């Protein structure tokens, strides 16, 4: 098995024709990976992603081959996946204003060419979810592009499919989460083509590393929203004499435990399943 890449929080291995995505327990805050892992974070996010892949498999086929056929040392935190010819579009759905969507709205009153009503604030819910793709250029940086750009890149038909699938997955995921007290403010999806040319959903799905999760009962437009899982780490680190550049500070035990508990809670709240503590 060959290590292809070690990312901030996930590692990618090649195993023959397949790739294996391994989610670590590393956690990042303010864009910096901290030296202290959060036990089980990788397993929890992997299991959550698998749960969503299963639930939403009627919307689009996905790249999951097996969560069991992986080396035992990665059991629970790894997924064996198909190799896909990846489309160079990050497909983002936004239902609320945050992050780059908020910044672009403040600059232009629109996001990815989608006009939005005036008077929206940080954290505001949008009138309807919008598709805000970015391109994955190897030069420069990933940039917002319009739907017309996507259509030029991948063709109008495929572009339309990407938009519809992205928004459908977001709508269904966000609706389910809302019933369970969690706002999914936005999410990023990746698509590729299988060997037969079929559009296939790749990467991870509706985890807190690919989406913003906010507690519904604490939602208040006009301010920065609380991150449902790693807010303990953010709050703790914001009180430190740390300039938010690497290396990050070690996380105290009580913050580690509280953060782990929050990841478990989010998993259980969304899935309705109990997290097996021996996992």
């Amino acid at each position: 098995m060959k290590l292809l890449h070690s990312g901030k929080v996930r590692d990618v291995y090649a195993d023959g024709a397949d790739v294996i995505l391994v989610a670590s327990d590393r956690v990042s805050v303010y864009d910096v990976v901290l030296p202290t892992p959060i036990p089980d974070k990788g397993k929890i996010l992997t299991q959550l992603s698998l749960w969503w892949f299963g639930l939403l498999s009627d919307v689009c086929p996905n790249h999951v081959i097996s969560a069991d056929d992986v080396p035992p040392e990665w059991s629970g935190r790894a997924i064996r996946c198909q190799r896909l010819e990846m489309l160079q579009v990050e497909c983002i759905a936004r239902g609320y204003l945050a992050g780059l969507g908020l910044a672009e709205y403040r600059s232009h009153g629109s996001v990815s060419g989608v006009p939005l009503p005036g008077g929206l604030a940080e954290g505001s819910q949008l009138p309807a979810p919008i598709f805000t793709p970015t391109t994955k250029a190897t030069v420069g940086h990933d940039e917002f592009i319009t739907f017309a750009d996507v259509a030029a890149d991948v063709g109008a038909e495929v572009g339309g499919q990407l938009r519809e699938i992205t928004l459908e997955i977001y709508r269904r995921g966000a609706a389910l989460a809302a019933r369970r007290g969690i706002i999914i403010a936005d999410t990023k999806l990746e698509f590729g083509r299988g060997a037969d040319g079929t559009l296939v959903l790749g990467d991870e799905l509706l985890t807190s590393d690919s989406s913003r999760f906010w507690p519904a009962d604490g939602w208040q437009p006009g301010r920065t929203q609380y991150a449902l899982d790693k807010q303990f780490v953010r709050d703790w680190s914001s009180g430190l004499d740390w300039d938010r550049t690497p290396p990050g500070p070690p996380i105290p035990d009580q913050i580690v435990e509280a953060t782990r508990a929050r990841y478990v809670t989010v998993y259980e709240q969304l899935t309705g399943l109990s997290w097996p503590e021996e996992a």
Partner: protein
Amino acid sequence: MQCYDPNRLIDEVRELLRERGLDPAGSWTPERATLATGGAAMLLRGLGVTPAMDPVEGVVRAAAEPWTDADDRRAASGRV
């Protein structure tokens, strides 16, 4: 299905242009990058080839960092 990475095509065209004595895009701007990427994808489609990233590069880029980190960083950098 024939696939080819538009980013790779851009690199190859830049090299070709240099060989012909040109100095293509000495300074990349976001607008130029987006234009070049879109143009390369359209050229490939026009030639009957599906524009897609190399499978390894595609999955590596996707798994490189949490998207939420990237989105916050882009917002903080004011690159819109």
